[in-house]
């Protein structure tokens, strides 16, 4: 890439990760040096201090989601939490059945462990989604069988921002007597999350999506009505009541709790601000450009998320033109697999729109100036690339691209 030091850098990839809030960092710092103890050291003050910090954090996180302290398992992040939920439940409840249900737009940290279980003889039902990214609740209801041990449906989608009706899904699972896991990585600290009201039995979340540090997550595991039991995935010391062995990441855990506390201080106010930045960006882009398609649900959508397909231009070439703007694309050329986004494909938008997609995500530190600069550069890049796009030319000539015989390669 060209020299990036000369250009203003605008970060619009808050759904990938967020900067650590300075207040979170301040809360964490004492636990790297002065209070560096191992929370499992039971016979000196270093250990006691660390344990106290962990337990205070655990209590504050539990209170925030309507849980009790003993229901919070600390992990290394949402990927580990998701693996522990899927694999841990599957192995513990094997005598009950060998069927789990999830959906096509889940994060790979759900889909991959689920696929792994298929190799172990499990049956996995992957529910499809409609054009907005929603599952059909009746389809979910009828997919739940006698031998279904777990339903895992994410709260907010990381690519398209679609928010699933978690309370309704939780109620269906409760009624049917199957456990319900949700990946709330994109929503904790942002949307309303309450494990009681929403009938959530297991829930994953991560600190680094809400202005906390990377490398720390939680798995909420319900202990009453019903009591959820897990077969551990990681063995070695029996930490976290045997659910997850390994020395606790004390500064990370303190950072998680502080980050969540800050998010909840004025959750609705912050979400309103974030949505206003997103809406400003969306309006500027769609006012200036035609043939822009919104991916996801216009309404039931994360406040930070704006996933747009700019028809007739390819995502990676757009990123090349948007110097200094940090965003993501669903284009194949930007992925390690060279496949376009499976989430967008699941919506049925067509591969060509997946190749043309850009995910903008705004956050706490986004400014109007940044939004305007990003919008200007995006508009200029789309216009420049459309001027050299054979597809745009054909569309302007009135040719229906879907009727063209392409040669492929």
């Amino acid at each position, binding site marked *: 890439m*060209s020299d990036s030091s000369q250009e203003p850098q605008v970060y619009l990839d808050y759904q990938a990760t967020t900067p650590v809030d300075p207040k979170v960092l301040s809360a964490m710092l004492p636990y790297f040096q002065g209070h560096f103890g191992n929370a499992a050291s039971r016979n000196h003050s270093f250990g006691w201090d660390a344990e106290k910090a962990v337990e205070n954090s655990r209590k504050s996180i539990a209170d925030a989601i309507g849980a009790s302290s003993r229901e919070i398992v600390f992990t290394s992040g949402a990927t580990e939490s998701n693996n522990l939920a899927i694999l841990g439940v599957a192995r513990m409840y094997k005598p009950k059945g060998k069927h789990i249900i999830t959906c096509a737009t889940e994060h790979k940290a759900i889909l991959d462990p689920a696929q792994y279980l298929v190799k172990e003889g499990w049956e996995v039902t992957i529910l499809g989604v409609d054009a907005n990214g929603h599952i059909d609740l009746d389809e979910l209801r009828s997919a739940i069988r006698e031998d279904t041990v777990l339903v895992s449906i994410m709260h907010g989608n990381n690519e398209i921002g679609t928010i699933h009706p978690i309370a309704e899904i939780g109620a269906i699972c409760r009624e049917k007597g199957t456990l319900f896991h949700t990946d709330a990585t994109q929503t904790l600290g942002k949307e309303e999350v309450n494990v009681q009201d929403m009938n959530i039995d297991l829930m994953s979340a991560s600190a680094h999506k809400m202005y906390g540090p990377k490398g720390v997550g939680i798995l909420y595991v319900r202990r009453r009505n019903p009591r959820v039991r897990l077969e551990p995935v990681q063995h070695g010391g029996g930490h976290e009541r045997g659910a997850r062995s390994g020395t606790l990441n004390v500064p990370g855990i303190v950072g998680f709790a502080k980050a969540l506390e800050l998010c909840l201080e004025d959750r609705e106010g912050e979400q309103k601000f974030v949505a206003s930045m997103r809406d400003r960006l969306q309006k500027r882009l769609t006012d200036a450009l035609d043939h822009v398609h919104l991916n996801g649900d216009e309404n039931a959508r994360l406040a930070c998320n704006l996933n747009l397909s700019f028809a007739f231009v*390819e995502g990676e*070439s757009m990123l*090349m033109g948007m110097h200094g703007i940090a965003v993501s694309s669903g284009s194949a050329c930007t992925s390690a697999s060279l496949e376009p986004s499976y989430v967008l494909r699941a919506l049925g938008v067509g591969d060509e729109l997946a*190749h043309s997609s850009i995910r903008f995500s705004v956050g706490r530190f986004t400014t109007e100036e940044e939004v305007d600069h990003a919008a200007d550069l995006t508009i200029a890049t789309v216009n420049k690339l459309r001027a050299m796009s054979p597809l745009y030319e054909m569309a302007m000539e009135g040719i229906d691209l879907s009727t063209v015989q392409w*040669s492929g*390669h």
Partner: protein
Amino acid sequence: MVYSEKVIDHYENPRNVGSLDKDADDVGTGIVGAPECGDVMKLQIQVEDGVIKEAKFKTFGCGSAIASSSLATEWLKGKTIEEATEIRNVDIVEELALPPVKIHCSVLAEDAIKQALSDYESKQEN
């Protein structure tokens, strides 16, 4: 994707963007690729006395697809039909220092050249 300076230069300053009259007898057009694959190249040549006088392209695709087709038009201009048939994708890969995952962009450019040449030649037969 970290690209070579040459790819970035072709992306920033694409040579010979545009279209020629595809129905003209002295114009050959090649359109290769597919939107669902993420790249479509249109490459056109205008031939006078067996020499390519003009070459134009339009490309939907990533930076290296744009650069490959831009470079192809640069190379085509002034070449005879015979010389043009000798352009190989490996030459494009070498010139642009394309990474392995982008080699297919150069293949597409070679295909576009061949198709444009054969379109021109079929027009001459009729």
